[in-house]
């Protein structure tokens, strides 16, 4: 009996793995009815439906469903169409297609397949609204969990997981509905106390406006939806144009012809545009390492001077593409949602922001005198003043409390330019006092119960660290943008094995009530190219430092 039981389990698992791989590709059309449309084939049940707000969702579980479901929240998608003329950002058409798990949007179902084959259920909504959709996502996820439990009544545990903005959704779900969530996986989390990310994007755009193109908008978008959209697209175009001109002037130091009078004065003073570009990056806290620029390598003949003089600016250039586009989309959307200007730098001390960096990047910044001149030139560009009522609403749209009450696994890229690792560090730092408080409570409880129950650690972070060297150079001495992306750079560049490892760690903790000891976590992380080190830290958001 025992042997045959094992055999049958193995057969089901193998069959499930094979069938999900084919079945998921053929996603049933979205149903508009309250009940999902389901199809079961080869032990796998796959359902599609729409929530009360019309958000499409997808649910999948196999016959060997073990009672634990992963509820996926996808990352940010723009809320406006982007034309092909704004390549490489466009073409993009707004979509609210359901996404059952990580990587699925790109057609890679390996994570979904692996989890379903292992007996887990998976589900995910496409959300009724895109861009800053925390409220919509929260409602959709709450409804989706109920729908999943109704369809699969043996469901016992729910693990919320998501990437980037989706990590905010997952964390928000746990913070507001702790009874619905048993565990979390937060990938490249845009964890954000309230205004960390707004400032990150706003500071970068403000710097671009101040130096490279005064017509770039930092905020204050039109309330008219059509005009606002036009402004957003125009802003993206301007940022991309400036980036192209800065790229062309990297070696010569030439400034874009759209430079502000203050920028032109800096150019006349002999300060290269790359120094101002780097200063903008440092003002905002943009990583000085990027997908193709490790900051420590140089091309043949400039192996030592390139990292000192040029590389940090090149990394900012590569990262600023993401930051500038995201800023143009998100700040406008934030203003739409809150009803007023959300970015405020009227009291920001940019000199202090770069104070600890000016020596580190001295050559690339062209020395202290140049930094003083660059920061001084900001005075010519009026600061942005936010609407306090709008700012007060930010937490409800993107803010988190940072409370960790369920087993939580984070995967974090050290040099993520979109959702800086500072966000994850904020959550780690937020959890420290919570754990200490739990210890104090346990001690207090022990005084009356005479039995000490040590609190369990609820948060582990798997770091995707940035390697010291990964840059490749072309024969002309430029970074080779066709070379492999450096680990720990870019936004949410995780392999399916890394997602699966994080998911299984979370599932294990949800099942047993605690994470394994350090050794097994370290080993599991290492196997998939991640690092588990409780003492590793990255700097917090510049605006919060």
């Amino acid at each position, binding site marked *: 009996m025992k042997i045959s039981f094992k055999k049958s389990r193995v057969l089901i698992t193998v069959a499930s793995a094979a069938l999900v791989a084919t079945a998921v590709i053929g996603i049933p059309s979205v149903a508009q009815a309250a009940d999902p449309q389901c199809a079961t084939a080869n032990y796998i049940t796959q359902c599609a439906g729409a929530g009360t707000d019309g958000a499409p969702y997808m649910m999948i579980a196999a016959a060997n469903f073990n009672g634990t479901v992963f509820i996926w929240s996808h990352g940010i998608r723009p809320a406006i169409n982007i034309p092909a003329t704004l390549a490489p950002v466009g073409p993009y058409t707004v979509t609210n297609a359901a996404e059952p798990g990580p990587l699925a949007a790109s057609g890679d179902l390996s994570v979904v397949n692996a989890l379903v084959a292992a007996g887990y259920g998976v589900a995910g909504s496409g959300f009724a609204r895109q861009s800053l959709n925390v409220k919509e996502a929260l409602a959709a996820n709450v409804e989706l969990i109920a729908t999943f439990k109704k369809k699969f009544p043996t469901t016992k545990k729910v693990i919320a997981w998501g990437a980037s903005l989706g990590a905010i959704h997952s964390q928000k779900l746990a913070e507001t509905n702790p009874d619905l969530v048993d565990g979390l996986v937060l990938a490249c989390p845009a964890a954000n106390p309230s205004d960390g990310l707004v400032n990150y994007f706003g500071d970068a755009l403000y710097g671009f406006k101040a130096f490279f193109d005064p017509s770039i908008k930092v905020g204050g978008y039109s309330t008219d939806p059509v005009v606002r959209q036009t402004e957003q697209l125009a802003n993206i175009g301007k940022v991309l144009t400036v980036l192209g001109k800065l790229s062309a002037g990297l070696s010569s130091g030439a400034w874009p012809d759209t430079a502000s009078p203050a920028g032109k004065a800096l150019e006349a003073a002999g300060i290269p545009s790359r120094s101002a570009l780097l200063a903008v990056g440092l003002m905002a806290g943009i990583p000085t390492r990027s997908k193709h620029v490790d900051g420590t390598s140089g091309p043949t003949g400039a192996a030592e001077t390139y*990292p000192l003089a040029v590389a940090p600016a090149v990394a900012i250039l590569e990262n600023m593409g993401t930051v500038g586009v995201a800023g143009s989309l998100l700040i406008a959307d934030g203003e739409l949602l809150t009803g007023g200007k959300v970015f405020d730098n009227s009291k920001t001390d940019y000199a202090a922001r770069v104070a600890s960096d000016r020596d580190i990047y001295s050559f690339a910044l062209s*020395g202290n005198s140049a930094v003083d001149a660059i920061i001084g030139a900001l005075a010519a560009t009026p600061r942005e003043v936010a609407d306090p009522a709008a700012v007060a609403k930010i937490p409800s749209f993107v803010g988190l409390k940072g409370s960790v009450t369920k087993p939580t696994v984070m995967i974090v890229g050290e040099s993520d330019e979109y959702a800086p690792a500072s966000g994850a560090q904020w959550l780690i730092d937020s959890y420290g006092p919570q754990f200490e408080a739990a210890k104090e409570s346990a001690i207090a409880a022990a005084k009356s119960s005479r039995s000490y129950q040590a609190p369990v650690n609820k948060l582990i972070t798997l770091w995707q660290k940035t390697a010291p060297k990964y840059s490749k150079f072309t024969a002309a001495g430029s970074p080779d943008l066709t070379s492999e992306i450096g680990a720990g750079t870019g936004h949410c560049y995780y392999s399916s094995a890394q997602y699966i490892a994080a998911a299984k760690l979370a599932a294990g903790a949800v099942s047993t009530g605690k994470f394994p000891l350090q050794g097994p976590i370290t080993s599991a992380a290492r196997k998939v190219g991640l690092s588990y080190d409780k003492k590793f830290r990255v700097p917090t958001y510049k605006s919060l430092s």
Partner: protein
Amino acid sequence: MIRTNRQKLALTSALLAVAALTASSLPAQAASDPGVTATSIKLGITVPMTGIASPGYNKIPGAMKAYFDYVNDNGGVNGRKITLVIKDDQYIPTTAVAKANELILKDKVFALVGTLGTASTKAISASTQLAKRGIPSLFVNTGFSGFADAKAYPTTFSILPSYQMEAKIMGKFLKEKYADKKLALIYQDDDFGRDALAGFKQAGITFGTYIPYASGSQSLPATGAGWISKLKASGAEVTVLFGVSSASTAALANAYAAQYKTQWVLGSVGGDATTIAATNKAYVPLLYGAKGFSFAPAPTDATDEYIKLFQSIYATAQPTQTFDNNVVAGMSNAFLAVQALKAAGSDLTRAGLIKTIETKGASFANPFLTPLGYSATAHVGATGYWIGTYDPTGALKPDGGKYTVYTTDSGNGPVVESSYKRPAMPAKGLPN
């Protein structure tokens, strides 16, 4: 009564149990601090072992290791042998961060020691969050006055006098010696130079010409030539160079090529003959007659008991290498590290080491000719300089044939001739 006592006893036991559990949940420093075992202490250093800044500086780790081996051969520090893990940062701050991370996370060193360069030290401190993690950074090789600020850098300790102190002492010297001359200043345009400018201002010195340069740009051919053009145009009779030795090389070589003569006054980190020779040995004599500053005994001073000991140790450890300023710096650094570790006692913890340097550091035995300034609020090492003149071999010899040491602080304190008498070296050069 019995019942009450029993209850009390039970309650007491429970509380004791809780207390024990509580205590066990606290970090057990001795056991949890990495890099220390009953028989060993692991330290780590990141320095330029290759690249443009490596000549000279790349001798520091070898010199440190030579002294550590000497101490190990003589029983170690409180029974522990010291190992030194050496990383090459090429003098690139981002590389220094990566290497420091390797030392901390992979090699699991107990402390960093002798990190070199203001920018690299700052980058490491900021990126690896040394202070938040309580990791000591011992005796960093930079004179940036900020590192002496215990509040800003609570786990970092300087060893050099600050550049601000140096500029104040240099300012007094310039006033006394070259009051009627046209003065020019070439300075590194970062916190190194900022310290210098602050010091000169406090000394009441105004230069006719200021030539800032971004750190690293001295390696570009046009940079040095540009300086000399500006100096020529200004007619500077005395030129102070407040930069690293590679900057001095660029200045001296270009001045020579342009047949431009000025009285060079070189900051303490700018007159290393080894570095200059690495570019071109023929440049070393160009140092001849330049004024220089130091706080350690001259490497050629065989009458100094520390120098004598260091020469002996180094000759055994590195028989093919020249004994120079960099070796003295490395061995002095190692000596001070051993002294601090020794003073921290057998129950060695990171927090305990930091506390020990803060409370006892000012009285540590050391080779320097100036007092040490360590306290709970100031993490400053040596506090003064003697002034000398370079001979044709590039060796700095004290003016007047003896060390006249001047001390000051990084604030508004006066520059005074020091009456400090260095305590005798501990027996066999082993801190006790």
